[in-house]
């Protein structure tokens, strides 16, 4: 149901933004507005279809489409009590932090922190691996990309 409304909102947003695009450059030839408006229309129809499908369903909400059993608030032994949603949030913070920090301190220094963080979030608890793998990986990336290939990294 949420995605039905989301699609309708996206469709309205696209139609709103497209009001400033030229609709047609010459007689009979579509301009830049044509495709976004067509897509908005189709997305709106799809959104309505999803809403209608949802309202027609009389059974309790079906979770078959969900990939993750995220509704459980049980704490697991592997993540020391942090919920799976919390793990996910931390992963997003880790990647966001890497993107923000790497231009400041350099990719070579930011990358081991990112890799180590992700390893820990996925469940790695070996201190040796949490330190050596990220460091070795950072050296590899620097050697291959910066030195060998001459790719400028932040």
């Amino acid at each position, binding site marked *: 149901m949420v995605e039905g409304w989301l699609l309708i909102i996206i469709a309205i947003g696209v139609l709103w933004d497209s009001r400033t695009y030229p609709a047609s*450059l010459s007689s009979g030839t*579509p301009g830049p507005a044509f495709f976004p408006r067509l*897509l908005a229309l189709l*997305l709106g129809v799809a959104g309505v279809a999803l809403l209608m499908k949802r309202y027609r369903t009389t059974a309790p909400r079906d979770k078959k489409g969900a990939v993750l059993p995220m509704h459980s608030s049980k704490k697991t032994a592997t993540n020391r009590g942090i919920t*799976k949603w919390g793990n996910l949030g931390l992963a997003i913070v880790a990647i966001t932090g890497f993107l923000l920090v790497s*231009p400041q301190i350099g990719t070579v220094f930011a990358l081991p922190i990112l890799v180590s963080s992700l390893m820990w979030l996925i469940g790695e608890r070996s201190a040796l*691996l949490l330190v050596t793998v990220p460091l070795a990986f950072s050296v590899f990336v620097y050697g291959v990309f910066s030195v060998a290939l*001459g790719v400028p990294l932040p």
Partner: protein
Amino acid sequence: MSSLIEGLITAIQPVNLGALLAGTTLGVFAGAMPGLSSTVGLALVLPVTFALDPTPALLMMISIYMAAEYGGSITAIAIGIPGSSPALATTFDGFALTRRGEARRAFGISLFSSVSGGVLGTILLMAALGPLARAAIAFGPAEYFGLGVFGLSIVANLVGDDPIKGTVSALLGLLFFTVGLDVLTGTPRLTLGTTTLMDGLGLVPMLIGFFAITEAFNTVAGARGPATQKGDLGGTLPRPRELIRLWPSILRGSTIGGVIGAIPGAGATIASIVAWNEERRISKTPERFGKGTPAGIAAPEAANNACVGAAMIPLLGLGIPGSASAAVLLGGLMVQGVAPGPLLLTEQTELVYALYAGFLVAVLLMLAVGLLGIPIWVRVVRLRPSILMSLVVGISLIGTFALRGNPYDAWAALFFGLVGFAMLRRGYPLVPAVLGLILGPMIETNYRRTLTLSSGSHMAFTESPIALVLILLAGVSFIAPAVRNRLVQRKKERS
């Protein structure tokens, strides 16, 4: 034939052979790394070629191009992330085989098919350079539109059990493509008033976001177990008998790759996707595709490597690059003082045959590198998820930096990672969205170009036999899965 033998003798001279080996190794690496590709690999090595003589320089470049198309399948099979977009179709069945504990078998099929496709594409190049070059320029906007719509019709086979969600995914992909400056008029669309979005949302950030970062989020959230379920995790190489049985699929894939590759601007991605879809369509067991069918690996891999030789047809014959990689190659040719075009075959026969031979030798070197590499790729599969996924995210983000040196691409990858995670969570497939982003430019741009040229008349699409056939095939391809499912359901009800 004597010219080809002379070309072979030239190609195996120590300096030239060294260039081919270096190019093949670099090409496999570039193709395998998410974020890199044959185009990036060629661009990175282009300055190096300035210091070389024309023959080794060009041989190095063509071997990178050939090997990168195979390299993309390595990560596609090992971790379900296409190293480059032409390997997208390989992930469908390749990664499924890995999950069944048959990674070695998948790698072996991919290698054999890539080598075969590379050879067949080179034979096509040698046999048909002149005539096919002339035919390739028969493709105009209407034909390209037909090709794009035909490619998008594959979505009908990828929607799974919920056609609405699959269609929404494809529409979102098409919508993502519209972000940025309109190709024909430069009008900013859906840029939210920022200059950052004027460059659009690129394909590589989407691939990295959807396949690498989404997968990492799923792993972090505990939704995914280890990549493989079975004990050995590697399995065995395919038997010769199995490889021989795959020959019809390889031939079909190579033919599709050869035809589409020769069309400027079509590209190996479309060729491999069409090859996979056609293989599924004619199969007696289409429901097995996407679940680890060998033909689902053989056809797209043969297609994307056949594209390499075919892409050289418009390049060498007309001086028109058939792909982004071919465009970089064109730059390399011109720097070396080689002018591609109709007179190349008559004025620089030795070089042309050295290039033909170079392709064949590159394919053999790719076979050697691949065979030596399979035990290494299998070790990658066996890595702990905590190490594997973390390194995948790290290398993917580094790859986005390598793409254009623009940190915005990494942010776009994170955005797609979040979108992909949300989509999968709600049961929306990701591949239709990727197809939408890839084919959107071809469909919209050529639709508008056709109508501009025909003063708004839609008859232009029916007046072109090629366009008409492609559009009709697209219609059949859209409807066929629904009809097939209805027939199967009726059979079940009767029985």
